[in-house]
């Protein structure tokens, strides 16, 4: 990488939240990649509020940033923000979660590029892990699955969709409970604790993100059900992958690579600003994490 005395570009980045290690990593690595390309990155977390993110985009427009990186909390409500940037002739690049293209098009807005780890695929991967899970521990009992959900985020809705289509195909798996784990560790903890006491036969927990999965692990441990209940699901954080390596409660999962997403997106932004062409859509690889490959995955997993 070259070193620059003064950044040539300013990129504004608004992420749905910064209090999830996944996005934290996305922001931090984007900052590094941007610096390497002589650009300055300014990033904010939106506390899962589309209105707050709109305000942040307005602030970017005011300070005439050269490009905007955007991970909206809500796809359908994000078109205003993109439109505002369009009016100010600032290119918008979405990451992780896209704007709802149908409404955006209808409103006459456009984005340059979208980098995503395929969320539907993540859900499907996790579902396949559940199906592939060695059920010898269950002694022939059917899989009773508890679903630690967070249905308010578009990305999670996609994961849910992917998970559901695959799981619905397996008659031996029954979803007995689906609760809101708020996407946080405390939320995952309370939801799982409630599931375990309401449905004592629950033996697999599916989680939609690593923080809530870690909460589920805590709940299982607290209920003295270690070994009886497995957690399988989105498990991108190092803590979660490490747990899989340790063959603890966390058995397997799906992983996305936020750092890679940032790397591609920043590279494309810089290209675009140099008037080079960029692809409209980049799907980054997602991974299936198992005890077998967990040590490799640790290198990808975010801190």
């Amino acid at each position, binding site marked *: 990488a070259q070193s620059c005395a003064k950044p040539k570009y300013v990129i504004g980045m608004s992420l749905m939240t910064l209090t999830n290690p996944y996005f934290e990593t996305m922001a931090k690595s984007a900052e590094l990649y941007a610096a390497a390309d002589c650009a300055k990155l300014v990033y904010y977390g939106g506390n*899962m509020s589309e*209105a707050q993110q709109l*305000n942040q985009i*307005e*602030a970017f427009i005011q300070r005439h940033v050269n490009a905007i990186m955007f991970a909206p909390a*809500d796809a359908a*409500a994000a078109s*205003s923000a993109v439109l505002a940037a369009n009016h100010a002739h600032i290119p918008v690049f979405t990451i992780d979660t896209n704007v709802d293209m149908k409404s955006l098009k209808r409103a006459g807005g456009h984005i340059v590029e979208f980098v995503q780890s395929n969320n539907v695929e993540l859900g499907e991967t996790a579902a396949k892990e559940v199906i592939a899970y060695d059920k010898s521990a269950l002694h022939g009992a059917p899989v009773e699955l508890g679903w630690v959900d967070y249905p308010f985020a578009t990305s999670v809705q996609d994961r849910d969709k992917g998970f559901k289509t695959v799981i619905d195909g397996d008659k031996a798996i029954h979803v007995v409970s689906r609760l809101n784990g708020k996407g946080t560790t405390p939320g995952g903890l309370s939801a799982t604790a409630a599931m375990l006491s309401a449905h004592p036969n629950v033996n697999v927990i599916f989680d939609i993100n690593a923080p809530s999965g870690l909460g589920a692990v805590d709940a299982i441990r607290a209920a003295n059900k270690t070994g009886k209940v497995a957690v399988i699901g989105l498990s991108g954080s190092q803590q979660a992958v490490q747990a899989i390596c340790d063959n603890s409660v966390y058995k397997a999962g799906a992983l996305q690579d936020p750092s890679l997403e940032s790397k591609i997106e920043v590279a494309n932004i810089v290209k675009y600003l140099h008037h080079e062409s960029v692809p409209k859509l980049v799907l980054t690889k997602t991974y299936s994490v198992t005890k077998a490959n967990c040590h490799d995955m640790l290198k990808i997993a975010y801190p």
Partner: protein
Amino acid sequence: MARTETTPTPPATPSAAAPRKSFRLPPETGIFIILALIMGGMELLTGNFLTVGNISTLLVNTITIGLLAVSETFVLLIGGIDLSVGAVQALSGVAAAVVINHTPLGWPGAILAGILAGAAIGFINGAITHYVNVPSFITTFATLGVAASIPLIVTQANPIPIFDNTFNALGQGYVLKIIPIGVLIMLLIAAIAHVVLSRTAFGVKVYAVGGNRHSAYLAGVNLARIDILCFTLSGTIAGFAGVILAARLASGYPTAGSGASLFDGIASAVVGGVSLFGGSGSVAGALLGAIVIGTLTEGMDVLDLNTYWQPLVIGVVILLAVTLDTWKSGLFRTLMRRIGGAKV
């Protein structure tokens, strides 16, 4: 003991009779000065804070919190609290979106639906609080749940896009190419609310009820009417906020106003000098409080302050601001108020 006898003078003419009016700074002066200081500070730090564009963005970003501060003022003044205003935004935004997408009523119907949804929740708040005599904290906690759930149930958490440009102009359009329509509406509503509270008989009664409910009752004030009206007005204005937010986002957003923003309206009003115990404060103060909080939030973004530091800096600056506001009224008044029955 010697008898010290002063010659009695005839009673001084009661000063009450004197027709001169002593000039007093309005109580909002303090918060206004603070706002000026904060803006000045931002300008010094950034070098380009006070541009027309930036101020306009700032005001646009303050629409929601400003309207919520005004709406909250009506309820705080009678000694109540309204936790539902945040969720009402979601409800009325979704109501407007549903009307525009699924009925032939178009944007006028949508606007009306949004406002009426807010008014209805407000009316329920007032009626239950008054007649069932439950603390308004509880009533509005319950309606917060109701107003937050309905949009989620209706939309299954998926925002409903709005493509009506006339409607969306409420949040995105400009008058004379420079004044955002939403800001205009906010200022208009605030001005009307200010006049209502400071110049009408209704306003006098609102302050009376908040100042001493029992005394107001004995003076013949219709408590039911005042309670219900104040809550209904609060809900109505929150409904406006929801409509404008929906127009800004071009969608009915079912989780609008959730989370910690619950507090923003109340916090703004309190920063602007409205008492949580009723009976004192003004709409102008509340609005200034909202602009202070809005400016700080905006300023943090413009200053590139790390997200993690923002709550800390905003909190500390607000504390300093209110402290200054308290002190400007002189140390003795301060001390007296501390001792003299003011609640902590």
